[in-house]
């Protein structure tokens, strides 16, 4: 598996608005890569630069090792599935799907055969002579995908393709898209703001925030080892504690928070007196009726929330911050108003650098100089 798309040092400015900042991403052949982020994070702009609808202000974009930033969209071997589908309203479904092949001057017989084949693949057989306005949202979506895939692109770009569908249909289409991708072995670059969608479908996820990729990793790594505070809070639920690293022994750091000390595993990049963030997922939180060694947190149970398979327990710390503790239904839980001592296994917590890390590094450089 080689690299198929390579973005290096890509920047995009609209006037003084810096929407994509120094982006470096490589996408492997046959990979399903998702650009995930909230609106305005630059994910769609990145996709549009690969498609050729926007030009990067600086930096290079390579597809199959060839620089394409000077090429017009119609000269690029990538195809796009648009958020609004962008089906031609004056053409039948057949003509919509055949459009790309017609532009390539493929013989009529072959077009016909390939379009019918593709319509069969996306389960649209029998719709050839309908117009887009006569189709439902899910059907239009299939046409948009078929219209792009029939060109056998090296890379398919999908811009929130399922955004306009209802939840049930969206779930179904997620699986179908994944199946198509595996079957055709085409590289997918997928833009979405839906984290669940990203976790379900992707081989790797690039989490974008303010024009920067905060983390690029597989879904499991992103969930279990968030690289930044933003990633930890953006993906799933988590408990976040900001504090100061006061000691490190055997790869376990003691971090002093406003409410007392806690322990968490850490790597060699952390140093004593650095301000850092601890993230612990609710399902990894534990509690005891007596203080646990190395943990000085005390909390009062405030509320329970029942969400089907699990029960969420909200506890309140002395400074007013709330923690979430998740338990499978039926497991033993404290009573409301009782005092508990929250803790976790140091391996279950993640220690994350925050902005003070940059200051520490800068100070080191000054010392070295």
């Amino acid at each position: 598996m080689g690299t198929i798309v390579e973005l290096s040092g890509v920047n995009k400015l609209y006037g003084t608005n810096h929407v994509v900042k120094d982006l470096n991403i490589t996408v492997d052949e046959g990979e399903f890569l998702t650009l995930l982020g909230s609106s305005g994070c630059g994910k769609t702009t990145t996709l549009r630069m690969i498609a050729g609808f926007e030009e990067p202000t600086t930096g290079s974009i390579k597809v199959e090792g060839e620089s394409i930033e000077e090429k017009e969209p119609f000269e690029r071997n990538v195809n796009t599935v648009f958020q609004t589908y962008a089906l031609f309203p004056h053409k039948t479904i057949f003509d919509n799907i055949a459009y790309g092949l017609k532009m390539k001057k493929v013989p009529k017989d072959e077009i016909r055969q390939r379009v019918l084949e593709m319509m069969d693949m996306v389960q649209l057989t029998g719709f050839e002579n309908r117009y887009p306005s006569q189709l439902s949202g899910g059907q239009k979506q299939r046409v948009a995908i078929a219209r792009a895939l029939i060109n056998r692109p090296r890379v398919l770009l999908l811009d929130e393709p399922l955004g306009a569908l209802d939840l049930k249909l969206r779930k179904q289409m997620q699986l179908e898209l994944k199946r198509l991708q595996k079957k055709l072995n085409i590289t997918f670059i997928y833009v979405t703001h839906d984290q669940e969608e990203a976790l379900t479908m992707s081989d790797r996820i690039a989490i974008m925030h303010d024009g920067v990729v905060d983390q690029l990793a597989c879904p499991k790594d992103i969930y279990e080892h968030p690289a930044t505070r933003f990633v930890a809070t953006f993906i799933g639920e988590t408990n976040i504690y900001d504090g100061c690293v006061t000691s490190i022994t055997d790869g376990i750091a003691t971090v002093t928070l406003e409410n007392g000390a806690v322990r968490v595993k850490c790597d060699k990049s952390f140093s004593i007196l650095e301000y850092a963030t601890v993230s612990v997922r609710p399902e990894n939180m534990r509690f005891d009726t007596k203080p646990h060694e190395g943990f000085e947190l005390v909390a009062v149970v405030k509320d329970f929330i029942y969400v089907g398979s699990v029960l969420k327990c909200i506890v309140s710390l002395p400074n007013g911050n709330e923690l979430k503790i998740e338990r499978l239904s039926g497991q033993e839980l404290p009573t409301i108003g009782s005092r508990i001592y929250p803790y976790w296994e140091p391996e279950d917590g993640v220690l994350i650098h925050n902005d003070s890390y940059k200051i520490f590094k800068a100070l080191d450089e000054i010392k070295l100089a």
Partner: protein
Amino acid sequence: MMKKRSKHEFKSNTMPAMVTVGPVAILLLFLVVAPLIFVAVMSFCQTDEFYNVVYRFTAVNYGKLVSPDYLKIYAQSLLIAFVTTLICVLVGYPFAYVIARTKSKKKQLFYMLVIIPFWTNSLIRIYGWRTFLGNSGWLNKLLMTIGVVSEPVEFLYKTGTTVLGMVYCFIPFMVLPLYTAIEKLDDSLLEASSDLGAKPVKTLFEVILPLTASGIFSGCIMVFIPCLGYFFVSNILGGGNTDMIGNLIERQFKSANNWPLGAALSIILILVTLLLVKIYQKLGGDMDSLGV
């Protein structure tokens, strides 16, 4: 037993139809319907030896309409209207496209440049052209000053001049429906076309033109029809050499003083107009974009 009033009727606080649409209906009745009936009646009347209208039935006016001289003018009118419409499309489309698609803040300004001349009487503007193009007009003076020609060029009283004046008068009627149609065009459709491998020319013929055809269509109707009846442009710039149907009608009512014949010509023009609008409607044209 007394008839119960329905709940809806009782609570209804809409004003009776007479109060809301009544005044307009009466106005239209007096100013549009009545005169039209009058014209229709007039077209079947006779004249005495002093060309006074005599209210006695005859179809002789309609018989006169097929004389070779008239037929020549009909053909000429259709030709001028056709050429005018064609030039309006060719000039108006790129212009409308640019102002509709530009992201520049000057968009409103460009749009106003089309609209503002609309607010000035077209008769005055056509006289302006005459002053500009005349033998001692500005254009000739300029050409002689810079030495391109030694004596004035005869610009006026040619078919081309009439067409120029017509195009000038009617270009806003072409640009406005085109603008509306082009502005509605979704950017992502153009992007999709390019994404699927279509070069710009292909996108023009496969996507842009088909999707703005309704605008072209209504623009053509809005130029072609009034063009047939416009008489003052050919009067002023064509000097009577390029008569339109409108000139014939005007002449019957004024210098020739044959009102019944003029009325018959008017009826024919109205019928031609209705026919064209009907065809437009049949072909799926949007009546709203004609402003009717």
